[in-house]
């Protein structure tokens, strides 16, 4: 039986879909059999982030309504043969699913796959309840901003109330130069406030935008900084002990002098 992870955050736009795509792809790179489920009915996006938008024939609602078989709706990734996507429906809304139906679907998927990664919609209403219903583990994504951390705290409470204990934290979009200046909360600050285990830190990196433009998750890109962060996250999910990434890049002696006088950053 595989593991079912739900990737959630409460607040929108903090990087749930990007994290889902990169964690799913990262696990597939090391040879795991993975399916990513887009639970954001009506606002599907995981397909474009993965670059698979042209291959959609059936979606999750078709599967649940019995309009097609599960196998027919699963889209195989173009790069990794053991990576699949179950896309969300774009024309329906979240009331097209119930938590019970999601539980049944996840049960089916985990018999077939080693990892099921569910991309949860923003918010804490019906869509959230559907997305977490079939999961047995949770990953909470947040950014070091007050609104995102507050929502993450709320979501952690709701997850625990739904028996998803010990969620793992991904702290996204860290800007080392701002942290250094004291204008952004550090990993330690956020961990102290939320009091949950950290799965990884992802720097605010242009390569995320570029890889999303291309529909090619940056976890596969050796030169990408954020990609390296997601590779570390994948390894930690597999039980390896990997130290948190050093976010301050040394730029040499001259760089340090310039930075001291605020000419560089």
């Amino acid at each position, binding site marked *: 039986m595989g593991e079912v992870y739900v990737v959630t955050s409460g607040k929108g736009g903090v990087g749930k879909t990007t994290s889902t795509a990169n964690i799913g792809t990262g696990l597939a790179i090391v040879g795991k059999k993975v399916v990513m489920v887009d639970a954001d009915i009506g606002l599907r996006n995981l397909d474009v982030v993965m670059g698979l938008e042209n291959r959609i024939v059936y979606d999750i609602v078709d599967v649940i309504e019995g309009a097609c078989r599960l196998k027919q709706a699963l889209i195989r990734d173009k790069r990794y043969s053991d990576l699949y996507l179950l896309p969300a429906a774009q024309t329906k809304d979240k009331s097209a699913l119930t938590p019970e139906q999601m539980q049944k679907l996840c049960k089916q998927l985990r018999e077939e796959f080693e990892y099921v990664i569910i991309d949860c919609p923003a918010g804490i209403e019906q869509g959230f309840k559907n997305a977490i219903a079939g999961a047995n583990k949770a990953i909470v994504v947040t950014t070091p901003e*007050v609104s995102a951390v*507050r929502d993450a*705290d709320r979501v952690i409470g709701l997850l625990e109330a739904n028996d998803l204990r010990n969620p793992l934290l991904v702290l996204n979009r860290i800007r080392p130069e701002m942290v250094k200046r004291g*204008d*952004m*909360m550090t990993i330690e600050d956020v961990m102290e406030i939320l009091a949950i285990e950290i799965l990884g830190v992802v720097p605010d990196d242009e390569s995320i935008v570029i890889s999303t433009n291309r529909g090619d998750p940056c976890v596969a890109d050796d030169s990408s900084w954020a990609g390296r962060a997601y590779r570390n996250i994948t390894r930690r999910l597999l039980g390896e002990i990997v130290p948190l990434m050093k976010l301050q890049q040394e730029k040499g002696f001259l760089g340090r002098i310039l930075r001291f*006088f*605020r000419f560089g950053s």
Partner: protein
Amino acid sequence: MDMFNILWRRNPSKKTAKDRLKVVLVNDRTNCSNQVLEMLKNDIVKALNIYMDIDAEALDIQITQTPIGDSQGEYMPVLNANIPIKNIRKFKEQLNRRE
């Protein structure tokens, strides 16, 4: 700390963010557990009833934040209870019984 901060002694905004978050989250978290607060309220009423008649209807309890000492940004949650007493005759009865 770079030159700018040293010269202007600028207050780093992350500290403000953290302090504000801590206060907001205590409120959020206690709001989530209204049920527990209600249970606590009932138990307090039960215990107090041994000693005095209290106005259970007007009883008001809540958890608030109080700064610790004079260190800025350190808060401690405090349970505040406002309990109107109708009659404290029972208190004497209890004392007599103990003796």
